[in-house]
């Protein structure tokens, strides 16, 4: 068995002047739940279609199970796709839909029967064999599409926003179910989504894409905790950005002068020189507010707004002329919590590793 289920080496795809995929290099491990995450139009679907063979790359190489794909047509690639709109055959029953791939590979009749029944049980959809796709709900159609792909026991399953058309509740339930299913069958999943929460909860690893390029690949925790660029920090969750100039370098820390007026200390986890323009990223839930400075590092600010979000209380705190920070405090629902009001002076504090130094 090859080390990687799928490898993309410097893969590009141009549609005339449009660069849909731009020098993408990815290695997806066997049995991994791998997500492609990015905003609309960033090239996720195109990347998936390149792997499936519906499009041919204009540059670079694609390997599936260690085999160079070249111009191999889709029907000879050991992958199956769950399409965004499901693409169930409307003129066939559920049974015929699920049996289609096995039939095309000339699997014996009785084996087809057994495997189709198994697949339908696996997606918890038994007894629907004779229905037509238009007699099923969206969630049921989704399961049929999944069964139709899984029944072939592909090396890799490609899923293009498979839950996109479902309502929020069903979506959450299906997320857990899909993840459990993937762990059970052990098939490599390449999962396209633009929903960061979905990607974070389901994936072993995530590739964040923008404008055809892969910006960062890592586990959900790495992506969330240690974004390497401003786009990733901004796209995954909510982030405050402070821009400034490096004032001083110490062995383990860097002092940044934000907006020319406030000194902020960050861990020196990347090479910067004095005078460099940098950005500091800090998550709203990592900032705490205090009436008195808890630490000499704490920064004074003024509360501008308080927003009740249910689980949280969100404050907008002005740090400088140019910068307002968003701060989230959990709402414990008791009077124990100190509430600040607009106009109050507060002290902002966070643990040193919570702030990330970003260049660009």
């Amino acid at each position, binding site marked *: 068995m090859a080390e990687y289920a799928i490898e993309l080496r410097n893969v590009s795809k141009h549609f005339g002047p449009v660069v849909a995929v731009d020098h993408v290099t990815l290695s997806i491990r066997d049995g991994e739940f791998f997500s492609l995450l990015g905003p609309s139009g960033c090239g996720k679907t195109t990347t998936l279609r390149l792997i499936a063979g519906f499009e041919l790359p204009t540059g670079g190489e694609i390997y599936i199970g260690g085999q160079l794909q070249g111009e191999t047509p889709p029907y000879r690639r050991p992958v199956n796709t769950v399409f965004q709109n499901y*693409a169930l055959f409307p003129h066939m029953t559920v049974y015929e839909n699920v049996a289609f791939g096995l039939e*095309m590979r000339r699997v014996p009749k009785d084996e087809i029967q057994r495997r189709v029944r198994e697949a339908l049980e696996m997606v918890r959809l038994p007894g629907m064999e004779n229905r037509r796709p238009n007699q099923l709900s969206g969630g049921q159609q989704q399961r049929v599409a999944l069964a139709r*792909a899984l029944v072939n026991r592909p090396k890799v399953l490609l899923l293009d926003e498979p839950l996109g058309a479902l309502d929020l509740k069903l979506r959450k339930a299906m997320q857990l179910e899909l993840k459990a299913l993937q762990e059970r069958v052990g098939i490599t999943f390449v999962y396209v989504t633009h929903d960061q929460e979905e990607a974070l909860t389901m994936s072993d690893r995530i590739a964040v894409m923008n404008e055809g390029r892969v910006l960062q690949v890592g586990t959900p925790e790495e992506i969330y905790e240690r974004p390497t660029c401003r786009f990733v920090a901004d796209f995954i969750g909510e982030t405050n950005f402070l821009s400034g100039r490096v004032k001083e370098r110490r062995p383990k820390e860097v002092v940044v002068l934000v907006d020319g007026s406030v000194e902020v200390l960050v861990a020196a986890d990347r090479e910067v020189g004095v005078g460099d323009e940098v950005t500091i990223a800090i998550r709203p839930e990592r900032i705490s507010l205090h009436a008195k400075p808890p630490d000499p590092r704490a920064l004074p600010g003024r509360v501008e707004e308080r927003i009740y979000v249910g689980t949280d209380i969100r404050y907008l705190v002005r740090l400088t002329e140019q910068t307002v920070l968003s701060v989230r405090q959990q709402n414990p629902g008791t009077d124990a919590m100190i509430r600040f009001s607009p106009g109050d002076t507060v002290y902002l504090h966070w643990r040193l590793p919570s702030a990330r130094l970003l260049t660009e």
Partner: protein
Amino acid sequence: MAERPRARRETVRLLFLIAPSLFWLLVFFLFPLLLVFAISFGQRGTYGGVRWDLTLENYVRFFDPLYLRIFGRTFSIALTTTFLCLLIGYPLAYFIATRPARWRNGLVLLLMIPFWTNFLIRTYAWLLILRDQGVINTFWTGPLHEFLVQIATALPLPLWEILLRATSQPLHLFGTDGAIIVGLVYGWLPDMVLPCYAAIERLDFSLVEAAQDLYANRFRSFTRVILPLTMPGIIAGSILVFIPSLGAYVTPDLLGGAKSIMLGNVIYSQFMSARDYPFGSAISFVLMAVMLVGTLVYFRMGAE
């Protein structure tokens, strides 16, 4: 109780609204049809006209081998025409429907432009192409023959002998069933292309990708997905071609010459030269019955 008059008023209003079309259908369609149906049971008057001694004789007469043979030929010409139209029309429709959207309307228009010319004139043009002194034969016995003569003198081979003999006289294209079929295929091709085009254009091509993703090669994704899903277009097109071909009159009249005639020509001559209205009516009704049964069977087949 107050509901009643209002419902009645609604009915009256509705009747009033559909009256013009109802009137039209009754006067110009149903009434003549019933008249023809009635006449088909009458007998030919001595000096033309109809004698109202009711009889089934006209229908019995249709089963004369002479007419049955013409019926058989008519049926097979219509069937061949439909089949050829499908063979040419479906790939053409597929080609147009898979071009980029901005080209499609233009291509459909190109397909339609020749049909703005009168049907009679277009059929007549085929006569000029197919007849013994026509375009094809001018080339056949002219440049082609001379070319072969030159090759034969430069490179003597027994093969040339056969070809030289063939091109020394015109091909008899005109006045054959083949000529009629060419004319009919040409005439009714758009009626096949348009419904097929509509069906193919509506087809969701992600289904074809799904089939290919599930190991179906191009041929199998065509037979298992594209063909069944565009079947309504094929059926509509086939009916639209088959029915007018079965009742064709102008095309066999112009291109079939004296030898190749179809049922439409028989009906015409019964009314116009033989003045046997009852027999002409009976043939018309048999033809109509065949069309009706054929259409129903075909629809039923498509529904499966």
